[in-house]
């Protein structure tokens, strides 16, 4: 989804993730899902399936206990 002509992007740091699945349960528009592959700690991290649907509501960022996921409106050449 685009908000005021700007694209929303979801970032996942998969090495920080512990696979609790709270972000997947909390997302109202079904952007995220748990992946099949595992990270170096052996947890299944979230991946973005439907990137178009993200509303930038910030719920996944708010509830993630491991500071691993966030969404921002994309700016040119600036990460996060």
């Amino acid at each position, binding site marked *: 989804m685009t908000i005021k002509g700007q694209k929303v992007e979801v*970032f996942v*740091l998969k*090495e*920080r*993730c*512990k*696979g*609790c*699945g*709270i972000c997947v*349960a909390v997302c109202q528009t079904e952007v995220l899902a748990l992946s099949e592959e595992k990270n170096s*700690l052996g*947890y299944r991290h979230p991946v973005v399936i439907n990137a178009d649907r993200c509303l930038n509501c910030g719920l996944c*960022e*708010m*509830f*993630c*206990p*491991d*500071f*691993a996921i*966030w969404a921002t409106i994309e700016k040119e050449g600036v*990460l*996060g």
Partner: protein
Amino acid sequence: MAAKQKSSTLENIFHPTDYFLVSDIFPTVWCPGCGIGTVVYSFFEACKEKDIDRDDLYIISGVGCTGKIAEFLCLPSCSVTDGHIIEKAVHINEHHPEKKIVLFLNNADFLISGGKEFKKARKKKLNILIIYINNLIYALSRDQAFPLTPYMRTSTQGEFEIPFNIPYMACSIGASFVARWTPIRAGWMKQSFVESFSVKGLSVIEVLSPCLIYDANSGRILDPVERMAFYNDNSEIQFWVPIKNLDIRRQKKIIIGKFLDKNRINDD
């Protein structure tokens, strides 16, 4: 205070809260789905909203799971053995009176070893914020029940006495801001942190945090999402409830909300 690890600079900031955290120490030490991470996140979101920088804060934490918070903060912080935590706060207040002192406490620091010590906070008229993270059990020593465990929950004989009432105790210490939230209400919790920064005196915020160990004895270990949903289903928001009615009992909904605010203008 031991030297911190590599501090956060502009190059290794990824997450919006990484400005306050040490970036080397990830992943964090807590269990998957623990509520402590959410509390830390919403506290620093409140700091951002109030334009509080790293040097305006001093954070003290105790022992156990909650004590690990001070280890990965990129700001003046220390973790103290239980029973000496108010002493430390008094020292810091004498040397840096301009700093906002925040205590992250758990059961052992607030109730068991350090409980008696909190009379000092009233005498000295400290300007501190106490965030009491309550997971209803001694998590690191497995199934041990403690004064806030509801009836017949974890130990084999059960906890026979009525669970302790934290907001009532906070009022008797002389608090001027009392609230209670769970991590599933993270937005409300952040709003309470913002309000408590402008309150003078002691402010106590209790957070009922989900814990992995809590259900281990009853044979059903819930997964993190179910555990968060448990606190969502068994709690209800009520504001300005009489403080004597706030103890946590079994087969009753946990009342969460804001209960005391000396800054409040009476509407009614």
